[in-house]
């Protein structure tokens, strides 16, 4: 009995050795890819760009300042390889990178606009099937080449580009200029019969100095405005100059997995409102009473949007009700909108402003792009008894004929720390602004 026990013990110990630790990799035997870029190759089908973290530069507290060498604060390196597929590129990369490439910490996958317009179906499936790629990677469509974009990612606040991607691509929570475009969301929307996917629009800022600023890329003219609002830009064209070259603003709209158009920052806000992903953002709304002045609001979505779809003569009639709450940040004109009698004026004008924007955005996506990025089909889908009927119904082809009935309900809740704006008196004694 005792002998048997010893034999069993030894056997079990040996079998544990037989597992061979076959997939054991020390952390420092791996090279961590932070971002992957897809471009059309010059000599091959693809040009894959890897951004690989250099942990040595991020150690920080190591104490050996001189040991870092020439690179200074180099935290990542960029490697571009032309190859037929993603995995062949990974294989080829390992011929030069000393450590095995590991993509389990990749935060962003960047497609060039050119690639996206041709369709990225096959690459999405590669990414989603693999265990190593995270489904919560962010999908980015770069308006420049992906290689150039990734090369330009040189975060200043972050030591680690992964953190840069994570934080900036999460900023939709407080800017509402980009969407939550994780790979899994993209895949779900792309594979569903009721919706179309979007990807965050990324770009490299074009301006060499602040003197070069122009509005060629702004969308304000389309909206018949006199000057651009904060959201009337797309990534790459923002009038901004600084050490950070890369920017994210707007959405790439896909039909299936083929990119068909772009939304600017403000339209993205409307998209978020219509889908209920809107959190809060600052808005500048033209003063309804005084020309040239703004009312600044911090607008939050108080409830999930109410979305209803009715089929009228085979055409979708979509009802959308958005409920918003706002805090007053400033009333530039000094008009006493805080007064309960005047408040509806302010609310009405904000409602109208947002309603108009929403209507334009929805019309643009349905009439111009024929894509249901807001996923209204989900409301229609529930009316079907069988999958075959729903499949046959072909929502996505009918969406372009839809009419929209948008209703916005905005309530101002808090005036901030001032109950009313009191203009500063001048030597001439009269108020600077008119007060009705």
């Amino acid at each position: 009995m005792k002998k048997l026990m010893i034999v069993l013990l030894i056997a079990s110990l040996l079998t544990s050795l037989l597992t061979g630790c076959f997939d054991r990799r020390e952390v420092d035997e791996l090279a961590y890819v932070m971002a992957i870029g897809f471009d059309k190759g010059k000599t091959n089908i693809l040009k894959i760009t890897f951004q690989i973290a250099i942990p040595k530069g991020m150690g920080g507290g190591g104490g050996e300042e001189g040991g870092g060498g020439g690179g200074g604060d180099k935290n990542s390196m960029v490697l571009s390889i032309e190859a037929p597929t993603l995995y062949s590129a990974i294989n080829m990369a390992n011929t030069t990178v000393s450590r095995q490439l590991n993509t389990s910490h990749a935060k962003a996958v960047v497609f060039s606009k050119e690639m996206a317009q041709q369709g990225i179906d096959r690459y999405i499936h590669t990414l989603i099937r693999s265990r190593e790629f995270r489904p919560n990677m962010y999908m980015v469509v770069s308006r420049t080449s992906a290689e150039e974009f990734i090369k330009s990612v040189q975060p200043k606040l972050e030591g680690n580009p992964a953190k840069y991607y994570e934080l900036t691509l999460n900023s939709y929570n407080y800017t509402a200029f980009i969407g939550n475009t994780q790979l899994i969301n993209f895949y779900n929307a792309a594979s569903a019969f009721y919706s179309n996917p979007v990807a965050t629009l990324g770009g490299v800022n074009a301006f060499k100095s602040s003197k070069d600023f122009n509005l060629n890329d702004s969308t304000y003219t389309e909206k018949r405005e006199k000057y651009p609002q904060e959201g009337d830009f797309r990534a790459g064209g923002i009038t901004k100059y600084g050490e950070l070259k890369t920017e994210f603003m707007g959405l790439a709209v896909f039909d299936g997995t083929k990119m068909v158009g772009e939304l600017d920052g403000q339209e993205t806000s409307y998209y978020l409102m219509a889908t209920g992903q809107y959190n809060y953002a600052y808005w500048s709304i033209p003063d309804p009473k005084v020309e040239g002045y703004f009312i600044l609001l911090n607008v939050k979505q108080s409830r999930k949007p109410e979305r209803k779809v009715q089929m009228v003569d085979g055409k979708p009639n979509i009802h959308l009700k958005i409920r918003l709450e706002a805090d007053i940040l400033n009333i530039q004109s000094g008009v006493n909108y805080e007064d309960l009698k005047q408040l509806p004026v302010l609310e009405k004008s904000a409602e109208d402003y947002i309603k108009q924007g929403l209507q334009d955005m929805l019309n643009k996506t349905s009439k111009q792009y024929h894509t249901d990025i807001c996923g209204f089909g989900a409301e229609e889908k529930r009316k079907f008894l069988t999958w075959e009927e729903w499949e046959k119904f072909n929502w996505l082809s009918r969406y372009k004929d839809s009419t929209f009935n948008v209703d916005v309900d905005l309530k101002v809740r808090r005036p901030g720390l001032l109950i009313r704006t009191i203009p500063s008196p001048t030597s001439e004694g009269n108020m600077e602004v008119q007060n009705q």
Partner: protein
Amino acid sequence: MVNYIKNLKSLIFFEEPEKIEEFILKESNDEGKAEIKEAQKDSDRTPELKKRDRSIIKKPMSAASGNDSGEEQGENKEKDSNNKHQPSAVKPRENISTSVEENLRYMKDIFTVPDNGDIVIREFEITFKGKPVKAFIILIDGMTDRTVINSNILHPLMILSDKDFKTGEDDIGEFVKSRLLPHNQMKVTEKYQEVIDEINFGGCGLFVDGSKVAFAADVKGWLARGIERPNTELVLRGPQEGFNEILRANTALVRKILKDEDLIVENAKVGKRSKTPCSILYIKDIANESLVEEVKRRVNSIKLDYIIDSGHLEQLLEDDPYMLAPQIIATERPDRVAAALTDGKIAIIMHGSPFALVLPTTNNDLIHAAEDSYIRFPYANLLRCVRILGVFMSLLLPGLYVAITNYHQEMIPTDLLLAIVSAREKVPFPTVVEILIMEVAFELIREAGIRIPGPIGPTLGIIGALILGQAAVAANIVSPILIIIVAVTGIGSFAIPNFSLAYAFRILRFAYILLGASAGFLGITTGLFLQGVWLTAAKSFGVPFMAPFAPKTSGGFSDEFLRPPFWKQETRPDYVNPRDTRKQPKISRVWTQNNSEGDANE
């Protein structure tokens, strides 16, 4: 000058050393005798026992001892079985002789008097019916209280016996017992052995000529440690008394807390030679009677020569000696013993050990500290959570670290991962080796810290902190993050209230490191599964070790992982099957009810 040269010569040239007979430890003639005797005794019994003992018989023995055993076998039957340890010529006798000379001779033989230096024999005379009667007392110096002997035994016997007594007993034994000895604890016996046992344990034997009986007075008076703070189980709140090495002081400490006549302190003796007194404590109408019987059965059935500490007893009593977790709690705290007794558990206190054994023990008890029930329940629950965290950290943290860094890099935040990578950049060893180096070093520091003599103690701290902590990192032997892991693990293991359990987890920790290194989370999960099976299968005195979690016991026993307020702990633990399951009525705070007029229990 000649001497000088001679000495020089002896340094250089070889000289045959003088042949001196050195001391050689030879085989004793008696060796193996006792074992053979036992074996032969057993041979009358069941064949299974014989089979087990065969190994003993097979041991080589000298021809002489073989012959002896033949002779002894015949004598064996007459002999008092207790007296086998006297291989000398003294023929053991049972009953006390009426002749004091004979008694004196026999006692001298038994205690090997001229050789045994600390045996005191004092001969004197008692006046009985006007005539002097010879008597003597025998005691061991240092174990007895001299003043008590002088004033309570010698003084009345030698001086007061001269007085005129109104009534006269005919029997001198009766006379001495009822008239002359004002001592409170007297044993009157006709058997030599009882007197000898008493003398061995700090008693005083009194033999009187013409008496069939001898007296043994309890005059224990050896020096002992006082009642001090418990060293291993410190609390902030609660009694600060700890057990010491004296049995009766210890039982008194428990009785002092409980003040209940239903508390039974049963005596038992362990050790064929040492006859170490033990007390089995339980509360008559709470503890389950079959549990009491089982404990008594186990304690009384133990056969060995000497027992020194309750640690020995624990190892002899526990159910599964190969299980890592302790199955009996050893505690220094009388209040903890008392609390366990009120729950229907049983305690064993052994003479000479400041640790009482509390049984049966479940996993639940091992992570409770004495303090838990004294402090208010939110605080106690915080402490419990912290403690559980400590338990898991000390068990799993290094294993998890190895598993994550070797297999599951995707599990940790990118920043942390990169920090680990950059810290490991220059370390030449794999993570497992690295962590084993540090764990072994840590265990070394710990062990050395206990063994090191007091005055050199601080050196260890310097070596440990400086060399292991700083220099190892600076020399790139280990990464700084690993130092944190090992330190947190160490702190976690100090938070385990039961140090036996802490030992168990120290051993298991290495198993989890190896499992984590060989198969990642799969290995650790397998280990946890096996450990779970092991623990749930274990029993302590018939009580499942994982009770009340697995099996889940019925009843409202509520002091499990978290503890409810004290007034809600109404029942005793169900798994010890107490006779009385309720320890408080449904409403114990009667004042909370409006109509209560001070009449409790209604």
